[in-house]
């Protein structure tokens, strides 16, 4: 604000010297004083930006809106089973081709998802992901959602490929207590 104020003042003074209007010098000085006044006043106001990464809490001061599209989460259903049925629609919808899935079939003894099929391998390559949210939109079972994870920068590109284990929500969160024991037992 202050900077723009200054610039316009300079512009005006240039024009003033061209026209030789000396009264404008006083106008210029008052303008500068006014501008600097705003700058000084703002300087003592409380901070409006987020104090990341020096803030409090697990997010270290970052504040995210509800619909912020961060690192993906693979959700579980109320029984603790994975919601993902490996339909590959997210991979098909992905414009940057960053989702890799290998499907496998649930058996009587090993049940991972509630449908016939589950994702044996589910990788998202965050080197490529553009966080467009198409995968979330394509998902017929609401299995993949955008979480709020955003600290994804890395100096090692290979660590940017997240596996299913990195994306899956923990059984401990988001389950009624009664189901938790059972879900932990089956997993």
């Amino acid at each position, binding site marked *: 604000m202050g900077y723009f104020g200054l610039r316009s003042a300079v512009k005006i003074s240039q024009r003033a010297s061209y026209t030789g209007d000396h009264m404008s010098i006083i106008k210029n000085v008052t303008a500068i004083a006014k501008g600097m006044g705003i700058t000084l006043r703002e300087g003592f106001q409380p901070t409006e930006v987020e104090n990341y990464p020096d803030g409090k809490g697990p997010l270290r001061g970052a504040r995210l809106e509800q619909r912020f599209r961060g690192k993906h989460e693979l959700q579980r259903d109320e029984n603790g089973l994975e919601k993902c*049925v*490996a*339909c*590959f*629609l997210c*991979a*098909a919808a992905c414009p940057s081709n960053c989702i890799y*899935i*290998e*499907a*496998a*079939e649930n058996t009587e003894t090993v049940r991972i998802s509630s*449908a*016939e*099929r589950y994702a044996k391998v589910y990788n998202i390559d965050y080197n490529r992901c553009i966080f467009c949210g198409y995968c979330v939109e394509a998902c*017929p*079972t609401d299995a993949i959602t955008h979480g709020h994870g955003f600290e994804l920068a890395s100096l090692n590109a290979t660590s940017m490929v997240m596996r299913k284990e990195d994306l899956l929500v923990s059984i401990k969160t988001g389950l009624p207590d009664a189901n938790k024991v059972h879900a932990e037992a089956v997993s």
Partner: protein
Amino acid sequence: MPDVNFIVDGKKLTAPAGTLLIDACKSAGIEIPAFCYYPGLSLQAACRMCVVRIEKAPKLGTACTTTVAEGMNVTTESPEIAQARKATLQLLLGNHPLDCPVCDAGGECELQDMTFKYGAADSFYAEPKNHREEQKWSPVVYFDRPRCILCYRCVRMCGEGMDIFALGVQNRGSSSIIAPNVAPSESPDHMAALDCEQCGMCIDACPVGALTSGTYRYKTRPWEMNHVATVCTHCGDGCKTTLGVRSVNEGSEIVRGDNRDKSGMNGDFLCNKGRYAFDFANNIERLSSPLVRQSDGKLKPVSWEEALTFAGKKLRELRDAKGANSIGVIGSNRTTNEESYLLQKFARTVIGTNNIDHHRTADFVTLATALQGTTTADGKPRFASQRCVEKSPAILLIGGDPTNEAPLTAWNIRTNVRLNKARLYVANHQDIKLKRQAKAFAPVAEFGYAAFIDSLASANDFSTAVKAEEKLVVVVGNELRGGELAKLIAALPHAKFALLADYANSRGASDMGVLPDVLPGYQSLKGSTLASEYGAAGQSQVADAPGLDLLGMFDAASAGHLSALYVVGSNPIKRFGIDASALKNTFVIVQDMFLTETAVLADVVFPAANLYEKAGSVTNSYGDLQLVAKAADKAGVRSDFELIVRLADKFGHDVKTLVPFGKGLRAAGMSGDMGQTRGAQSGEADRHSVWLTANNLEPKLSPFDPFAILDEIQRVVPGYDKLLRLQLLSGNDQHIAPAASGLVQIQTGRKDLVLPAADTLFTSGSLTRFSPMLQDVQRHQASEHTDHLASAD
């Protein structure tokens, strides 16, 4: 049939009278949707999707049952019709589970497509759905009952197409359900089961995901795969199979086999092996590194360079020390034509011996020589193609059991009888299943085919009927060979003939001269132009006397006269029951996928690619040439073609004389002028480059390019000279007939070395035990007590 004129959607069309409206529209590019209609099967008119407005008709008519008539005026798309189809879809979707995300058919489902097209996606169905549990009918066929839309395609395919009738409908109305032929009460595990040929044709025909394949189910989605159309490696019929492959760590893996493009000779058909028995390629026992026998007697993985250098040098030493004729080469009937040709060229020009043979499963030498110089009544060659079996008005089947050994031949015979009312005559020593389609059956005593051929000369009902046929195709099983086969051919002077062999390229191996007594194209070892060309190209003079045959080689090995044996894609120790000790003093090189009975005896083992992992061409039993496309890929294996070339290189041979590639080609030492300057005049060394130039073909740049050898095959193998590249590369089949004259003269007393493989629907030579699917199906079939392959009576 005379043509009639009619109008569809304002377009004036013409079609032969009697054509179904749905077919007539399809040929004019107007697609009418249908679930139950399937070309070639009986009409059903059950799905009501193909309804069209026919002028003057009181209500919408079904295009699948209406035949075109003069002046008919048809509308195929209108708001009224769209509403009818939409309502039908809404009704169907009422009880159809909405599990598209997990359904195997999702993405290639006709119901999905129609729902998108007619906008019936919003459902107002609020009632509970009729649910039923999924059933496993066999290791390869699963039935998800609620997904079934009751189009009855599977029932008709199984009954009419396969002549098995293993599927039927139970109950009525909305409780109608497709059920298999083994009721829970009859099955050992009290589950409904399918006792049939396990061909999976029902799965192919299913428009939705109700019938799913046991080997593919829930593995991936259709759009995640690449689809490669290639030729099946199993029997000698030459079916086209479409392999769905996907990337895995070790390359690309085959996850599904089906017949989606239907452009092959097999049309709709694919048998159990063609559809499912690709899993040997993914077998965990597969070799992925060269092995060399160490001083402690054990095979140890080594690098490619080390193994090839060792094998090449040792082979050279033995050739130089013990002579070329102390070395034997055994080829394969599953390698491509190019590889077979290259192998015999390797034997004849690199090593310099005629000691080359393969496991013969039919006597093609006799067929070629007995038919040479003769024609049918209308002057055509007498070699029948697979297409003839599908079209010919009359077929005589002597010996063999195509239902088990050559399923496509059986399918084509059945289809021809069913749709074209072809007349089938069967002469066999067993009550084979095709007897059910036969117009006449002549029982033959076991080993009594000679007597049967004699009886053709006398006037009995069977021989009179057969001889009255003007366009007869004779399909001969491998019971007949040598003199008997020649006699049969002489007894039916105008018929076309085909021999049933056992593997994908049995015919190709014969045609390519993987035989000790003939050169490629059944040309003589002595005096033919090819013989002199080989003589000029070889490092040592190749003898013009026949070499050792397969058994002769092992006899020589036992006697200590065989210094080295090079086996490519074959397992003679197991197949011919040879005692392992025969090879104890022989240096053995084996190229194979697995550590077979032969490979464990080898000094060097090279892991080889299978037919699905390479490109080239193969020739089926009938002589139909087809392109093999590379579908899968496996880290650590090499194609036989590459291995032969590299072995020749390590042997110290100039590979340019083996595979004509790169500039200069054969004219070693000449500047890159393609050799025309010298070759045209000398007429010897540079014929290949001259021929390439004359035919506007490019010289190949890589020594591993099979097309370089295909060029040479086209140049030197009679019959193959007629092949059209465009046809081959377009994936079309071409029928190859050996030369009409100038073939080898069969010596009397030529040994009969044909050993029928006796494979069934669920075996495929050495591959059987490496295919878990085939093992599963064999166990399943053994647990069912009925014998569906038995003749009806």
